[in-house]
């Protein structure tokens, strides 16, 4: 509860903050809080990912981006009433959707009935790997993880092509400019 309250406070602070440097740092704090919440929920693997990616690498990448752009946000030009209504409606719809979910932590929820018992009881016998998270990720759901790896690969290639391609073009432009 304390963590969730802190999370809400940080979110409001991010929205009100105009300095983008502050926003980046607050987003890092948000990620660490989220990681703590995930640890409380016993999702250690996800917490580890959240802490290393959300608080670590993305903070560094955002700071590197800030280094290339301005560090203060421009004040909004017009009032954004329609987006506000849209996000409020979406939020209410999401909360309304959670009302019909089975209560948090029930053992006989549908999601725990289908394939989960097999994963949890057979993982050591079938794969020699005691950590069910790892065996589900890399074996039972190997296709999904292959897809995720390919997504990372594609994103990396895309960013490299965009940033470096433009740099080369700039350099070529400078050269031709000197000649002219």
């Amino acid at each position: 509860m304390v963590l969730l309250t802190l999370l809400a406070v940080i979110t409001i602070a991010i929205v009100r903050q105009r300095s983008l440097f502050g926003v980046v740092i607050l987003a890092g704090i948000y990620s660490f809080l989220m990681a703590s919440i995930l640890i409380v929920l016993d999702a250690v693997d996800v917490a580890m990912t959240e802490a290393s990616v959300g608080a670590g690498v993305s903070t560094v990448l955002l700071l590197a981006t800030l280094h290339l752009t301005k560090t203060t946000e421009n004040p909004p030009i017009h009032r954004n009433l329609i987006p506000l209504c849209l996000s409020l409606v979406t939020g209410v719809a999401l909360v309304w959707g959670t009302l019909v979910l089975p209560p948090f932590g029930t053992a006989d929820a549908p999601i725990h009935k289908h394939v989960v018992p097999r994963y949890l009881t057979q993982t050591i016998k079938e794969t020699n790997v005691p950590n069910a998270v790892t065996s589900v990720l890399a074996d039972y759901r190997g296709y999904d993880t292959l897809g995720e790896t390919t997504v990372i690969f594609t994103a990396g290639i895309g960013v490299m092509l965009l940033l470096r391609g433009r740099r080369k073009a700039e350099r070529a432009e400078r050269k031709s400019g000197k000649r002219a």
Partner: protein
Amino acid sequence: MRTDLILRIGTKLILPFILLFALYVQFHGDFGPGGGFQAGVITAGSVILLAITFGLESAKRIAPQVLIERMVPLGVLIYAGTGVVGLLLGKNYLDYSVLSQDAAHGRELGIFLVEVGVLITVAGTMTALFYAFVERER
């Protein structure tokens, strides 16, 4: 930045432990929390830390750009290749049980190989992204 003695010594002290932790997360992922993705990000983090304190040049001496860029597709190839082995030996794609006589052991080995692939791609991509952003201003 050049005179920041505490930062530089601290980085030197902590770097081997970060890399060791990354290896632990990678190879102990079968038993405890962790796996290729987390280990890859931690590995990339160590390179980024080195680049922040000692400058991009010294980071590139340890992790050259060519190597980093080869790593991005290499990991996906290892992952997909492990799947193809299953296909070639008469089972389904990504069925690791053919990798060894014992089906369970084969799947353990498959998980290991696949996680190595994820580690290589993630570490390569994260470092390459950082390099691309930092080099942009020059």
